[in-house]
């Protein structure tokens, strides 16, 4: 791989990690894509480059991106959670239900986040205790969670959230900087540290690379996975609070289809869908890319469903590109 002969012998403090450099170049690629899209957007629409519309653009992706941060960890550990959007629906329904009994803003937030964590714990229990494959389990809980919302709400909606509740999804911390955006950046830092700078993060990578080796190295695999499911539930709960606050109402169809967008974000961010590799920086850039694409196309009156073609193509092309290039070069991984 490395044909550059070193001038003098050095003893590396860690082994040359081709995976690491691959991720690095992936991030560079993503960043280039993000910049190209940014420039294309500002050329395509005169309304794009204004502080307020850029601020609006962030609302498009912050809630999904918050979940993507936790989902990245989960996927790196070799599991997946398809129920995240359904968790939003259930958490939001629970908040709306509590609202009918006069719950105030702090209680609503606690309920939203609490239901999220409970749902995550339920997924985690099924996957780690009963040892079921997460992809099917979460397809099941996805129907179950959203199904409960449908049972509670039917074709009705919960409305009339208190004015103070609106801050989370509509409030600004400073000038055009929204609360959602600040929360996302803060969480991105937290997750970056958690994944890349703590032993917990190391364990996640170990599990994703080799479940059995991790077990024999003393990593409590099931416990870590359980915690990751809870974490994903927590982030879905937070997203539920933000989204409910932003929309000001709860319908059982809330956040429909978000699970696919969240996973697209994670995979686009360079996280290996088979587990074992990925970075938070990549996911954050991917979140910006998806936000910019959808917002820019929205400014050009491109319907959402057509935007999704672009996202789908982006997903496949960005993943296929390094593989095609690698094959053309004749190098095998």
């Amino acid at each position, binding site marked *: 791989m490395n044909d550059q002969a070193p001038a003098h012998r050095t003893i590396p403090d860690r082994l040359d990690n081709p995976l690491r450099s691959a991720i690095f170049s992936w991030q560079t690629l993503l960043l280039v894509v993000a910049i190209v899209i940014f420039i294309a957007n500002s050329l395509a629409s005169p309304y794009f480059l204004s502080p307020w519309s850029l601020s609006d653009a962030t609302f498009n992706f912050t809630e999904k991106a918050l979940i993507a941060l936790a989902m990245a960890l989960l996927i790196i550990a070799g599991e997946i959670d398809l129920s995240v959007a359904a968790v939003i629906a259930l958490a939001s329904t629970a908040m709306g239900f509590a609202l009918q009994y006069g719950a105030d803003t702090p209680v609503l937030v606690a309920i939203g986040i609490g239901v999220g964590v409970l749902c995550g714990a339920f997924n985690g229990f099924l996957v780690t205790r009963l040892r*079921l*494959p997460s992809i099917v389990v979460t397809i*099941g809980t996805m129907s*179950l969670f*959203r199904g409960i919302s*449908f*049972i509670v709400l039917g074709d009705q909606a919960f409305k009339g959230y208190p004015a103070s509740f609106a801050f989370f999804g509509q409030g600004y911390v400073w000038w055009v900087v929204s609360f959602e955006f600040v929360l996302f950046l803060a969480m991105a830092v937290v997750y970056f540290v958690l994944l890349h700078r703590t032993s917990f993060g190391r364990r996640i990578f170990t599990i994703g690379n080799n479940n059995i080796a991790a077990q024999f190295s003393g990593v409590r695999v099931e416990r870590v996975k359980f915690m990751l499911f809870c974490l994903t539930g927590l982030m879905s709960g937070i997203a539920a609070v933000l989204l409910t606050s932003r929309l000001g109402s709860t319908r059982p169809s809330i956040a429909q289809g978000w699970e696919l967008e969240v996973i697209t974000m994670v995979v686009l961010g360079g996280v290996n869908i088979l587990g074992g590799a990925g970075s938070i920086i990549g996911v954050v850039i991917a979140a910006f890319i998806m936000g910019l694409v959808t917002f820019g196309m929205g400014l050009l009156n491109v319907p959402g469903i057509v935007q999704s073609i672009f996202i789908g193509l982006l997903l*496949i092309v960005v993943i296929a590109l390094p*593989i095609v290039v690698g094959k053309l070069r004749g190098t095998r991984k």
Partner: protein
Amino acid sequence: MNRLVKTREIWLALAIVVLVAAVTTRSGGFASPDNLASIFNDTSILIILALGQMVVILTRSIDLSIAANVALSGMVIALINQAAPGVPVPLLIVAAPLLGLAFGAINGFLVWKLDIPAIVVTLGTLTIYRGTTFLIAGGQWVNADEMTPDFIAITRAMILGLPVLSWTAILVAITFFLVMTRSPIGRAIYAIGVNPTAAVYAGIDVGRTKFIAFCISGLVAGLCGYLWVSKFVIASSETAIGYELQVIAACVIGGVSIAGGVGTVGSAVLGAIFLGVIGRALPVIGVSPFWQMAISGTAIIVAVALNARAERKTGRIILKQAEGAR
């Protein structure tokens, strides 16, 4: 392994019978032949799609784009029927599966030649196919009055007391049974699902077999594209939206293992019928149809928990990991 699946099928068949009997005590007409035939007819498309999905799942892959493929193939066929009513319907009926086959082949190609995990590929093509459905129709729907009478009538034509739609499902199930149990490709699909490494040593091309599995799933999706449009007499970009999950649910409930290699034609068919019966039973026993989603979710979780018992790995791999085995 196969014995476990067999007992599983028997339990599921019993569960369906009990379910039908229980509902019949509440509403006498439920078990009447007419009603049962009508339930089967309503479940036909789900059965066909579940069979296609099963083949893909057997190879340790998954096809999330199957419902989007239904929507796109159906839309293309409906648009042709709308724009050129002179084109004979049988030609369209042949064209639909071929279209679906082409879309499935795209999935298969990406999985085979580019080594992209199936879940990623089909996640991408899911949005692409559905978006394309919207694009080619210009955001419009094709309604009943824009279709030729033949186009709508064929699936409803009665043969020996059953509509053509039901017969199609029966024929497809028989074909799948023959292919999966009596042909080399069926054996190969099971082989790479059970143990890809051993399959490679046995001379089976894993990538190519996966490609064929995706082609099969695309083929039936295309067929269902026509069936769906003809049955519901509407083609829109919302056709069968989210239906891929129902299809996967039918497979899982039937006992098809998401880990690959385990599952039979009977299991997929029974899984689909189980969901179909529940869907029809709820309104009859006075439960709001809004319960359907939570119930199928619970059914999936229970089914996977039961499957897990059958899936515990017993053997261990003694062969060196082979190139191309994944």
